[in-house]
């Protein structure tokens, strides 16, 4: 019995009447950074959505244990309150809702769940300013509506900013590198690296090895047709880059 943060066993899941995950196993310890790589359609995004508890994804078989609890028993917001954070591949716009207000509502909701006192506006603003400076972000981000009119890079940075404020125990970054130019990619990766810590695990889901040059993982897994077909150290990512996914799929 390990004290794994996340333990996924034989996970089967479907969406839109299609089986996508077909027996996925993974175990993540606190403090680790894992990368899940795989070709399009292999089930990468499904993995993140299932862990976060999106209703349109149905778990048909298998177990997910998180902090020793049965994750499948928890609602989406309970999972968030228990410290699970999903950085979205396509962050959602909420027009007219101020970013600061959104985050304060989220943080206080989580604090309430944990029986901690809620932060008032002043305390919250202080916290947020501190996080902004750590991530080298400009504070005009605070005044804007949630993701409304943001560029692709700004949206991804906003996700990392939210992660910094909410301080999750398990963060899943779903194709956080997609659609970013190299400068944005570096900025986002730099932010993520600053959030690495001993009691936080990060799972980076990506198609390309590029992001892993900047966020160096402890473990790399290859996902193909709904299963982890190979796991290894960071060198596995390089091998994939050179030889393509065909190599593991045929293996």
């Amino acid at each position, binding site marked *: 019995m390990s004290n794994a943060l996340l333990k996924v066993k034989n996970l089967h899941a479907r969406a839109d009447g299609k089986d996508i995950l077909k027996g996925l196993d993974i175990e993540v310890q606190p403090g680790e950074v894992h990368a899940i790589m795989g070709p399009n359609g292999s089930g990468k995004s499904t993995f993140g959505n299932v862990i*976060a*508890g*999106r*209703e*349109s994804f149905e778990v048909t078989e298998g177990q997910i244990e998180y902090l020793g609890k049965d994750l499948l028993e928890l*609602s*989406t*917001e309970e*999972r*968030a*309150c228990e410290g699970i*954070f*999903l950085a*979205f591949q396509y*962050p*959602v716009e*909420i*027009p*007219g*809702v*101020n970013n600061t*207000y*959104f*985050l304060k*509502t*989220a*943080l206080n*909701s*989580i604090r309430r*769940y944990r029986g901690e006192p809620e932060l008032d506006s002043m305390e919250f603003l202080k916290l947020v300013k501190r996080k902004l400076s750590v991530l080298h972000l400009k504070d005009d981000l605070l005044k804007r*509506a*949630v993701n409304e009119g943001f560029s692709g890079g700004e949206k991804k940075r906003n996700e990392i900013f*939210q992660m910094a404020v*909410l301080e999750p125990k398990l963060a899943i970054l779903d194709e956080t590198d997609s659609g970013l130019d190299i400068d944005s990619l570096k900025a986002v990766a730099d932010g993520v690296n600053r959030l690495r810590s001993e009691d936080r695990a990060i799972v980076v889901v990506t198609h390309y090895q590029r992001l892993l040059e900047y966020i160096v993982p402890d473990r790399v897994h290859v996902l193909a047709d709904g299963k982890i077909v190979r796991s290894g150290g960071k060198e596995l990512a390089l091998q994939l880059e050179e030889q393509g996914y065909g190599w593991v799929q045929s293996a």
Partner: protein
Amino acid sequence: MSTTDAEVRKLVGRTYEHGFVSDIESDVAPPGLNEDVIAFISAKKNEPSWLLEMRLEAYRHWLTMPQPDWAKLDIAPIDFQAISYYSSPKSQKDRPKSLDEVDPKLLETYEKLGIPLHERAALAGVAVDMVFDSVSVGTTFREELKKAGVIFCSFSEAVAEYPDLVRQYMCSVVPKGDNFFAALNTAVFSDGSFVLIPKGVRCPMELSTYFRINEANTGQFERTLIVAEEGSHVSYLEGCTAPMRDENQLHAAVVELVALEKAQIKYSTVQNWYPGDENGQGGIYNFVTKRGDCRGDDSKISWTQVETGSAITWKYPSCVLRGDRSSGEFYSVALTHNYQQADTGTKMIHLGKDTKSNIVSKGISAGRGQNSYRGLVKVGRDAENARNFAQCDSLLIGPDCGAHTFPYIESKNPTARIEHEATTSKIGEDQLFYCQQRGIGEEDAVSMIVDGFCRDVFRELPMEFAVEAKKLLEVSLEGAVG
């Protein structure tokens, strides 16, 4: 209708000075509408003969009009002869004695809205001697207004004390035969408010019908007239976020605003009449004619409304931009839930040169609610350089509701610039999931998204009204998701 044309003509010839109405002592007119009933109402209120004539003319015109059916509303037939058009305010003994006798559901809503305890009784129609401190509040309030020269009183008082002013302005914006419901109101109106801001005066406080809450039973056929003389300013708040108890199903109000040169009127409404239950039973039919006349150059009229109540809302607060460089604004949030229907919007009639109008409409539909924006922008031949901008957004919650947009544009002047933008969006599964993934519960997420959607309108509301309006939307949308 019970009266034939020939009879009408015969009646026209009669004088109504004093009562051929015998039962003037009675407190309630028998159901039905005819010239006798109108004469009865007028006599009850001791009105001058010109006003009775005006009522009768409106009534005769009303008889010739069909009930309008162009709105996208499904309205059960209204039997106008089954309604009683006059009842004096309820006596104390007919009212509930205490909050214990009031519908617990209503009290629950007050609780959710955070209405202070001492105000709940008054709103629920409980027999209390005085509405909280309305006597003292009202008195200080009146004294301060008096100092400024502002007239703010009930319509009946105005008829008695300022008959010439009332006669000069009444029906000058909404003519007595303007439309079916306005004609009906003119014929049978019960009471309402009268405001006059004298030349150059900036009204020292927001005027609110709230301070007139003790005048019960005026809601059904209410009539409001606001006159802002040259260079004056006034902000007027109508309504209340608390659902008011009312036994009358049909409401037909008329509001007339007159802004003289350089005057500004800001009129804000929160309408939360009983919307009917979750199966569409009951609820108020709300047919309102609101119109402002920017009569003087450089005048401005601004309408802001938050409409969450009533089973049916038929309402188009409008601006006639007669003065040069005058401007009109319309900011609206209309919410329909369960089986509520709303057909609401505005008319901006540009007649003067360099006139401007701005329209922001936010419609929210949930449950089986149907929500239509209907707006007319009209530019007259002489309205050089008229500018209009309209933004109409609809938000859908759930699969069974509807949103519709009917913009009408008529321009007779080639220099006009008219812009119309419209969007329709759904509170998507993706938005909800995003909020929930951040730890925010579903109901909080919905109210946050709706609040964001309405932000452009809410910021036009006076501060304390905006806070209440936000809360009101939250309560109105309870159970809309999931």
